[in-house]
């Protein structure tokens, strides 16, 4: 058996063995840790927060729909341990609309960290005013406790 054949069969055996080692029968190691393990545990010190004062309803590209665009918020992480959560939430009471995006922080997230809110598309009929008063909040969740980092009004302007 030449070397290249050996290499191929070695690769095949290796690739087939690892899932078995991590499998239900052998179980020497567990290589597939759930991604949510330890999420929300730990601690974080946030000493500064920057939030936008306006957001926009923009006409979508080549369509009459509107896209809600909220600029990123920024938080300054002074110290962090574990995997705390930060949720960034916008609610527009006049539209009975509310949306939050949750971010998992990790130990290397120190200094200024940008927190984004996913864009969403609205049917043209749902956007009737020229601007909306909305609430923007940033909440830190650690060890089943909530800490409000920011909670304040924001204007959502409708651009034509």
């Amino acid at each position, binding site marked *: 058996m030449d070397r*290249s*054949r050996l*290499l*191929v069969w*070695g*690769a*095949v055996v*290796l*690739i*087939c063995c*690892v*899932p*078995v080692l*991590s*499998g*239900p*029968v*052998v179980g020497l190691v*567990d*290589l*597939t*840790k*759930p*991604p949510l393990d330890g999420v929300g545990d730990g601690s974080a010190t946030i000493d500064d927060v920057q939030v936008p004062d306006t957001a926009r309803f923009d006409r*979508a*590209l*080549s*369509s*009459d*729909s509107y*896209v809600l*665009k909220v600029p990123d918020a920024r938080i300054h992480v002074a110290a962090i341990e574990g995997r705390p959560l930060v949720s960034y939430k916008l609610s527009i009471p006049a539209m009975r609309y509310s949306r939050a995006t949750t971010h998992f922080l990790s130990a290397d997230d120190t200094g200024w960290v940008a927190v*984004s809110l996913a*864009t*969403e*598309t*609205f*049917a*043209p009929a749902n956007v009737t005013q020229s601007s909306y008063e909305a609430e923007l909040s940033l909440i830190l969740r650690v060890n089943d406790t909530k800490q409000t980092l920011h909670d304040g009004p924001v204007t959502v302007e409708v651009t034509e």
Partner: protein
Amino acid sequence: MTSADGVGGSPVTDRFATVRSVALRVFVGDRLGLVVFLGTLAFVALYWRVGIFITDNYTLANALVALADGHLAVDEAVFGPHLETPGMVLHEGAHYGRNYGQIVFALPFLWGLEVLATVADPGLLLPMAWALVLVALGRESGRVLGRPTLGANAGAVCGVAAFAVNVAVARPLAPRLFPVAALQVSAIVATALGVVMLYRLVTRLHDRRTGVAAAVVLGLATPVGFWASLPKRHAVVVALILGTCYALYRSRLSPSPDDLVSPLSFRATAYAIVGLTTWIHGGEAFGLFLALVVVDIPTARSNDIRSLAVVAAVFFLSMTPFFVTNALLSGNPVRPPRTFLSAQYAAGGPSTGSSERFLRSLVDGLPPALAAPMTVALDYNAILLGQFVSGAETLVTDPGRLYRVFVRGGDIPGVSKDNFSQTIYLTVLEAAPVVAGTAAACAAGVANLRQSAGGSVRWSTTQVRSRVRAFGASPAAAMDAFAVALGVSFLLMYVSRLPLHAQLTVRYLHPFYPLAVYAMARQASLRRVLARHWRAGIWTWGGGVLLGSQLFVVAVAAGSLGRGEAVQVHALVGLAAAAAFAVLAASSAFTKRLDRATAVAGGLTAALGTDFLLLSGLAYFPYSQYALPAAGWVADLLATA
């Protein structure tokens, strides 16, 4: 074509080598076909998400769970909130799925996953399979390219490295997702087989270079890659259609001693594949059947009683699974589940229109041999022929809608609204800009005809007719006619319902993508461009994928574009490139001077198709967990970009 590499050895290894070489010939043709097959598997897995994409995926997944439990009736919504999902039907108080052929095809993959999961970590099964495909791909590519050692080593190293990366970021896969994964694996395998069939067809017609180019374009630059890993029928139906094409073409070739079966067997195989298609979607199978009969009967080598008897017997035999399934469900072998009351709209019944009465009068005038099956079709499935009639009516009364189906979509009233106000509808040209090559090359072909006929349109139609007669016996001409008949058949079947929401890439006309690639491969001028400037095409494609995909990501992030907007950016850029390629491809019919530019434009349009496949999978539609954890890691990176 191919040779077994087991030299000498025990009888057992000899027999194994024989089985392997026969399987290789039947399914992928030759070693290069195997490379195409493995390459397609490796590519589409990159953006494979294990989960439910469209609500009717629930129907198939729940029906598969029921079938795996040993019964047809679906009594539990394992997936989704309830059983009233699109496509689920209600018959005598029980729920049933549809596309049973596809579900049965997925069954062995489900068993395979379940057996492997008893010893292996479920979360690592799919990365393992992908890494093994990479190892095999390296080994086979090396052999094809005449560098077996290099290929084997590279495959082994890349396979292990890719596996290690996936293991490093691995996450669990819930065994309850196995039925969905099995449907997806079966669709991926079907996609790869379909792509290989196009490679084999074009290689038989022309040469291996054109064959590989056609296969690569189909798998990597058209929505065939988009629907490859989604649990819907499209991938399987396209594979069956391409199988029919290949079998039909082989049935027209002179037999050679190297052949495994006779031309008549190939002819019967073409019908058998159509018969199997009924088990997945009766309507599409019927459209395929009509196209096949219309082309096969007039162009066959012989229509003697024996040939026709063999073909008919095999055809009816191939519909046995369809008949049995229907008989089990409804007690009536020719009544498929699609004709039952939809569970979703249990209040309203199936409607029959005036077109049905009109058709009945037409059918009565036909010879009994044709009228009998048609009457059956009418009696039990008025939808079948009604679709063609309303399609023809639509084409006459509203030809403008073809523009919305083939050229520019954008914001279409009624479509965007049902797509959650997002402009995620793409036309054929927007979804696969590379097919621009077809229209232009075909237009150039017509121009050539007119030129040789003295510029008169009247002359050219006469000449087309005489050409059809002259080439009636030509296998390639029969294949071309079949491609046209298939296109017409699918267009008539669906045009009255298009444009429609939840299509994304006009998936109802999914067979148009392989047909378009086939049409391009048939153009002598485009083959010349490929032969002379394939390097320019490949380099442009590579650059367009590596740089272009990053530019799209940057543009979408910089403009914080919504999903519909991002899709429209792809549409507009694609249309611009498609226009350039169309003009250049048309010019290639008249002059050789622009060949390099044509190759570059072709490579660019192909790259835009690939970019859309990768980014739609990794960035715009990240609806579930990724089969390859490393792909999920990349998708997370793109999401935070």
